[in-house]
């Protein structure tokens, strides 16, 4: 399966290369107010991912053609810094970052009370300054914290986690090697208060049972990460 099956990433005790059990999430720290000139911001360090998100607005939407008479628009820009990966990335937009910006905006539009700010724009900049695996999940999660830090009304935070499969074992929150050599990847965006979903992608190969396991891992991890997000927002980080 996957063509990389000979790379052994789970030891005889069922532990992963970084010592985690299959259902464990990488260490996470969350800090708000890290971009002093922004209305709201968040730095999230998740494994060796480091993501900085800044929120500006609500502000005037221009050009006028992007305005909506009955609601605000979200302008999401996901970007990987040139030095965020092993091989340098050429600066500028590419198809991958455009797609991630779009699905992130789609997810956040489902929770932000956009109708409170007709004809305005809320800008969300997501900068990946160090990438490991799962940057889209960290970006989306950090963006919801930054929106809350900016005081923008939302129905819920969004917690995004990806589970996948390596060596035929379903594991939660893939790291870099697991993502490179793994056999499947299922990123989800969960609303922790209701268990509803606003973001879902998947690629690879999962049996119905494996899919159920990956889904459950994501749900459990989301609840765990949600506690850290609330803690960070309530008082000076963690």
């Amino acid at each position, binding site marked *: 399966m996957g063509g990389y099956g000979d790379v052994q990433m789970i030891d005889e005790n069922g532990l992963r290369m970084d010592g985690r059990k299959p259902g464990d999430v990488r260490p996470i720290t969350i800090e708000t107010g890290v971009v002093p*000139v922004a209305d709201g911001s968040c730095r999230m360090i998740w494994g060796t991912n480091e993501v900085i998100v800044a929120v500006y607005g609500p502000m005037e939407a221009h050009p006028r053609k992007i305005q909506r008479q009955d609601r605000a628009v979200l302008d999401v820009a996901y970007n990987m*810094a040139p*030095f965020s*990966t*092993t*091989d340098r990335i050429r*600066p500028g937009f590419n198809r991958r970052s455009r797609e991630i910006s779009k699905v992130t905006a789609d997810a956040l539009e489902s929770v932000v009370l956009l109708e409170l700010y007709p004809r305005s724009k809320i800008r969300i900049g997501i900068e990946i300054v160090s*990438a490991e695996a799962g940057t889209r999940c960290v970006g989306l999660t950090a963006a919801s914290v930054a929106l809350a830090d900016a005081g923008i009304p939302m129905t819920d935070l969004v917690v995004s986690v990806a589970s996948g499969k390596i060596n035929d074992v379903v594991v939660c929150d893939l790291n870099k090697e697991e993502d490179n050599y793994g056999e499947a990847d299922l990123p989800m965006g969960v609303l922790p208060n209701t268990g509803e979903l606003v973001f879902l992608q998947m690629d690879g190969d999962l049996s119905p049972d494996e899919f159920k396991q990956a889904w459950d891992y994501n749900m459990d991890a989301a609840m765990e990460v949600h506690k850290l997000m609330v803690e960070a927002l309530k008082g000076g980080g963690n």
Partner: protein
Amino acid sequence: MSVPLVPNLLRAHLSDLALNDSRLDDRSQWDGRDVKLETGILARAEGSARVTMGDTIVLAGVKFQIMTPYPDRPNQGGLMCSCEVRPIAGRHWEAGPPSPQSIELGRVVDRGIRESGCIDVDELCIIPGEKAWQVILDLHAISDDGNLFDAFALAGIAALRDATIPAERFEIGEDAPLKVSKTPIMCSYHKVGGRFVYDASYREELGGDERIHITLGDDDHVHSLQKGLKGIFTAEEFDEIMEHAKARCAELREIVNG
């Protein structure tokens, strides 16, 4: 970048402050904000630095690539300095292709570092005419409260000094620190309320006029100059700035040499 509105009230206020030798944040004409420099802070970069000056925060990261030397310089590697100010850094910065402002930023910082000769491009050659290292310094703004130029230049030279050539990953020998023989430092001055001030904040830049950037190397050698924006200045004003720059560059060089 949209054309910012400059309130006349702000310009008038800045002029009043200048008359009383004061500034928006109570600094005097030649006072800089506190500078904090951290290095080795980015997991994936071969060298990195973060500079915090008041509410201005920037990152610099160094990456290496293998390049084919230019035909007219077969024994030399290359140094490239690129700068991006993305919408995260302030509400006045917008997405899209690099603006003239951010291109100027990158090029002025690049000239100061390149012309100081702090990196010996001959040492970057691996096989003459075939293979050489290209050092790429990427500057990334996180929060723009003015004077990105100085913050970028400081983060840039600090990141280069922190850099390791990743030879093992490219299977050409052992990792080694990048040799950086000099420490060029930039100081920038903005005309605000009719006089030059050092280390302007964003609101001072907004309500100010022309700016002058000076990069000095070790022994106070001048490596790059740039006058930006509309405005006229006198030789006497330039002399005064240059005197201050010499003293301030020495202080900042101490921080980098740490």
